[in-house]
């Protein structure tokens, strides 16, 4: 009994490990009955052929045998490794194909097709695998299985197995989970007392899928008994209370997340428009170029460094910054230099540039969107509560926006270049007299603004589409943030972005996305009328 020593003390909960082991063995034996341990070829075939209904009946039979080794085949079925080849059923793995009836090695023919598992069969397969895994020796496997079973649909053939597993379970946490699983199945029991007990057990959970189960039980064709109904309503109320806090937190998070995107999009403009006064209609296209730079870096990684593909995004950040900064400097040197102080012409010229950039990208990469993949570490999220998942890509963008903001603030307020930029924007003549090369500073400042727009492009490529028109959808928002925050103010842009983000998410929750957009625009218009200088007026001797 060497392995029993490996059980940590707290797991034992009074039952001797050896007793537990034999109990497990006993359960497995009961369920295996007189049948063979492994799945027969005929059973394997029956699991993949015919209508969903028949296949699921077969799955129930397999489950009733309580044979843990069946999970191997079920998993293969779930992973699309099982193929139908004419009248044969094959398991195709990296090592080759095996015929399930004969166990022979064969080669799949051209016509071999994957078994079609619709969502219903897939979830039944997953639930069955999890149920069988409850019989595992490994506590972590059992825990994962019990968690997986939370909120799965009621199925009485699984109940038997789950109840037995619960009885011999020694780990308190797993047992509590199993109790809830059993309760959610027993909610449809014929016995009123059982149903009442089940409702009481479920009230302790704050799982939204259990809430779904309880509320569907309350629906017209569900529970009929008034007492049980009251118990279910009580349980629902308790779960709702638990969920409400997280709902509010979720709303704030989405608001901040939208705000951080607005901020990233507007930061570059805060330099080119806010500080330099250039109405840059091509600002959106700078973001678009940044996003395409990400796409190019991604392809380079795919081609030359596929092993490090995960980290392409980090390489894309400097690449996008440098490329867009370069394009920005080029535009400033070639076009904008001769247009300073002529806002109308600047507006037209930059609009023209934006059209040229869009069309060139369309000619180079095609009119269709290009595919930018999220690295694996950006997919998914942290599950704070059952109804609150914080996606990694949103967290990344919030952190990224904060980082860019801090870097930019340091650059503007602490470096020599920043000093020059501030000097030139406040009083060009005086700065020039003091020996500042104003035309070089102009070029660098515009390059900086464009580069930051490029960084925004990297972030946007992770949450939305990368296509030639990417910039168009953000240009209005960017101007809105800068104007609302007060032209010439970085802090203003931050407050305006977060404010607009949270406000529009708040409206969206109340009135829907279309109305929210309109409401926000109306508010901004009224605000600008009442306070044309924006949230924060520029305090200083600004020369217009």
């Amino acid at each position: 009994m060497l392995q029993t020593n490996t059980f940590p003390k707290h797991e034992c909960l009074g039952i001797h490990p050896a007793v537990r082991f034999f109990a497990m063995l006993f359960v497995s034996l009961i369920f295996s009955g007189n049948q063979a341990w492994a799945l027969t070829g005929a059973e394997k075939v029956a699991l993949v052929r015919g209508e969903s209904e028949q296949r699921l009946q077969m799955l129930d039979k397999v489950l009733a045998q309580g044979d843990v080794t069946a999970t191997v085949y079920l998993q293969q079925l779930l992973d699309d490794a099982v193929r139908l080849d004419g009248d044969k059923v094959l398991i195709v793995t990296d090592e080759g194909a095996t015929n399930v009836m004969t166990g022979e090695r064969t080669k799949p023919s051209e016509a071999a097709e994957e078994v079609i598992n619709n969502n219903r069969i897939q979830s039944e397969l997953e639930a069955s695998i999890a149920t069988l895994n409850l019989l595992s020796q490994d506590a972590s496997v059992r825990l994962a299985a019990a968690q997986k079973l939370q909120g799965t649909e009621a199925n009485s053939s699984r109940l038997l197995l789950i109840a037995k597993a619960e009885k011999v379970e020694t780990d308190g946490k797993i047992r509590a989970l199993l109790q809830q699983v059993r309760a959610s199945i027993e909610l449809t029991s014929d016995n009123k007392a059982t149903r009442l007990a089940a409702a009481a057990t479920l009230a302790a959970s704050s799982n939204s899928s259990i809430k779904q189960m309880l509320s569907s039980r309350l629906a017209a064709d569900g529970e009929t008994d008034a007492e049980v109904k009251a118990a279910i309503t009580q349980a629902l109320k308790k779960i709702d209370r638990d969920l409400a806090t997280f709902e509010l937190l979720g709303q704030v998070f989405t608001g901040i997340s939208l705000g951080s995107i607005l901020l990233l999009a507007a930061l570059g403009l805060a330099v080119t428009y806010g500080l330099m006064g250039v109405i840059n209609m091509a600002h959106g296209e700078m973001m678009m170029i940044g996003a395409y730079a990400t796409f190019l870096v991604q392809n380079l990684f795919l081609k030359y460094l596929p092993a490090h593909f995960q980290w392409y995004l980090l390489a894309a950040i400097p690449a996008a910054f440098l490329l867009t900064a370069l394009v920005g400097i080029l535009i400033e040197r070639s076009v904008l230099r001769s247009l300073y102080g002529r806002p109308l012409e600047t507006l037209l010229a930059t609009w023209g540039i934006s059209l040229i950039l869009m069309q060139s990208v369309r000619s180079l990469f095609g009119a269709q969107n290009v595919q930018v993949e999220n690295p694996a570490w950006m997919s998914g999220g942290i599950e704070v509560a059952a109804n609150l998942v914080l996606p990694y890509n949103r967290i990344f963008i919030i952190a990224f926006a904060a980082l860019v903001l801090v870097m930019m603030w340091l650059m503007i307020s602490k470096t020599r270049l920043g000093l020059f930029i501030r000097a030139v924007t406040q009083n060009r003549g005086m700065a020039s007299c003091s020996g500042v090369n104003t035309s070089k500073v102009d070029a660098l400042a515009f390059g900086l603004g464009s580069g930051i727009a490029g960084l925004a492009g990297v972030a946007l490529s992770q949450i939305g589409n990368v296509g030639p028109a990417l910039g168009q959808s953000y240009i209005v928002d960017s101007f809105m943030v800068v104007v609302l925050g007060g032209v010439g103010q970085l802090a203003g842009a931050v407050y305006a972005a977060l404010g607009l983000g949270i406000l529009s998410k708040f409206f969206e929750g109340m009135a829907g996305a279309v109305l929210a957009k309109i409401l926000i625009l109306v508010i901004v218009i009224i605000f600008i009328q009442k306070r044309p200088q924006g949230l924060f007026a520029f305090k200083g001797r600004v020369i217009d």
Partner: protein
Amino acid sequence: MITRRNFVKSMSTIAASIALMGTASLANAADTIKVGILHSLSGTMAISETSLKDMALMTIAEINKKGGVLGKQLEPVVVDPASDWPLFATKARQLLSQDKVAVTFGCWTSVSRKSVLPVYKELNGLLFYPVQYEGEELEKNVFYTGAAPNQQAIPAVEYLLSKDGGAAKRFVLLGTDYVYPRTTNKILRAFLHSKGIKDADIMEEYTPFGHSDYQTIVANIKKFATGGKTAVVSTINGDSNVPFYKELGNAGLKAKDVPVVAFSVGEEELRGVDAKPLVGHLAAWNYFMSLKNPANDEFKKKWAAYAKSAKLPTAGKPLTNDPMEATYIGINMWKQAVEKAGTTDVNKVIAAMGGQKFVAPSGFTAEMDAKNHHLHKPVMIGEVKADGQFKVVWKTPGPIKAQPWSPFIAGNDKKPDEPAK
């Protein structure tokens, strides 16, 4: 560098070539039949419509190779209405009165079709419209080769109500804010009522074109889903689908818990998307690229070869989809009708269209209804796979007849199933 002299020179070359083209087409006017192609090649709809233009050109080239129609070669006239709805009408008028095309293949959004309709009626032109739409229309001058609501939307929702589709009890109707989603959802709401689903169990939401932040909507769907088994019916159009599906994946809303069935998401729309988080979500169409049958194998092979020879930017990964198949069927059926009528005269071709049959890449024989200008098509429901293709999980045993006037809209039962003469 373009110097002024160069510029003048190049302009005059262009002018000369235009003039040449003009005389060339005049000279050929007698022995070619002109065919108009009216799809947006720039602007927001370019993403979807560009491939339809290319598919039309491929089909025309194929017909020409086999000797053309009535012994004449087809001559495509391609115009770009640039996703600008009024411009569609202008370009249609130009095709009909200036180029004198015998037939036009074009339009994607319902609003563009509504824009050109008066032109085709006034000048008695002929339009083939290849995209699924909301119905509520039946015009003598138009043949609809895409699906009507009963060939896509209704069967898809029936599937969601079935056990295999998850036996949904609550529905989220989510769409882009314009005529197609609004009308479709009106029909679906009436259909759901007929299945005993109450208004409290239906959530209807719209987003503007190009909406990209679906956090709130996905959170709302999640909250709504706690009230009972929920399914989402998405009529989101264009590239808004990408951020929507990404949000679904990241928020942990799996197809097994809350399946999303989409009516405007096909292979081409998923090209720019990482499909892994979307696995298991559904789409309803009349054709999928993944279908295995001889007609589709040939269709895909032809398309891949054409994309390569025409050096299309997408030639590296040639994709086919439902509206492309509908375009292909439409042009071939028009050819058959012209041959039956012995002329390209619009009224005679319209009369010859009824009952035309064509072995479609879907593996079924598509048939033009004798009267109602719509195709009899099979309905299929596919689940998204990790590679952006669809595996068919359900299909009708055979083609079904279109009902352009949905019985789920009041007053439609009195409307005749054929266009007014």
